[in-house]
């Protein structure tokens, strides 16, 4: 798994490429928690190049979502491919996360929600 972060439209975009498996979850946790603790309010996980996700990595996304929300922020998901969409639907996490078709739409959604 490779993680790249960038700023886009005032949001922190965390692009996850490859497999978000049990071995990679710690690295993902470090990046997301680091962003939240560093003050990022709007975090977008770009899943466009994520080909696999396990329950451990899903747990990291949920923890980040809860932590960001406690600090008045957001974690949004963007561009999940078919297999990931299916996992999100199967786990009903598509009811927890706001999921956008792409990063641009997710940034727009964050802007609309900013106070």
């Amino acid at each position, binding site marked *: 798994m490779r993680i790249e972060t960038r700023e886009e439209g005032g949001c922190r975009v965390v692009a996850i490429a490859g497999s978000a*498996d*049990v*071995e990679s979850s710690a690295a993902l946790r470090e990046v997301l928690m680091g962003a939240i603790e560093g003050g990022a309010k709007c975090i977008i996980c770009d899943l466009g190049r994520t080909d*696999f996700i*396990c*329950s*451990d990595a*899903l*747990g*990291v996304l*949920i*923890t980040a*979502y*809860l932590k960001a929300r406690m600090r008045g922020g957001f974690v949004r998901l963007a561009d999940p491919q078919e*297999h990931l969409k299916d*996992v999100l639907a*199967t*786990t*009903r*996490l598509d*009811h*927890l996360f706001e999921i956008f078709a792409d990063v641009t739409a997710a940034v727009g959604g964050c802007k609309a929600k900013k106070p």
Partner: protein
Amino acid sequence: MPSLSPDTDNTYPWIEKVLPTRLEAIREAEGDVMERLENLGYDEDHQFAIRLAFEEALVNAMKHGNRMEPSRKVALAYRVSPECIQIRIRDDGEGFNSACVPDPTTDENLQRPCGRGIMLMRSYMDTVQYACRGKEVRMVRFRRSSDGGATP
């Protein structure tokens, strides 16, 4: 550890391994399974589903069964044929009752960061059964006739 293989088939034999309780060991075991699936022409949907269930079951065995104790092992057996994949995984732990695991998809559990492994295994495999008081899980996923496999 006693053998997990129920029988022998020279064409598509059961593969047996004893894994150390280390998460890194999962990737190596997974690599062999995925290679066999690919060689037999299993499509991407099958490969994704089997990889997910396989990883979840091994993680459960190591984390929840063996509690990541290095002295404990995980016994693994699998058989990949053109019709289906069969997987058996047994840990060295105390066992558990799978019926007592809360449903992670209910509204009250949706925000819990853990507890989705068994549900994912059940969702992505055709059968998931526990034996030996929960220490052993047996899973099967059949290939469908629509993707080049035989109808079970």
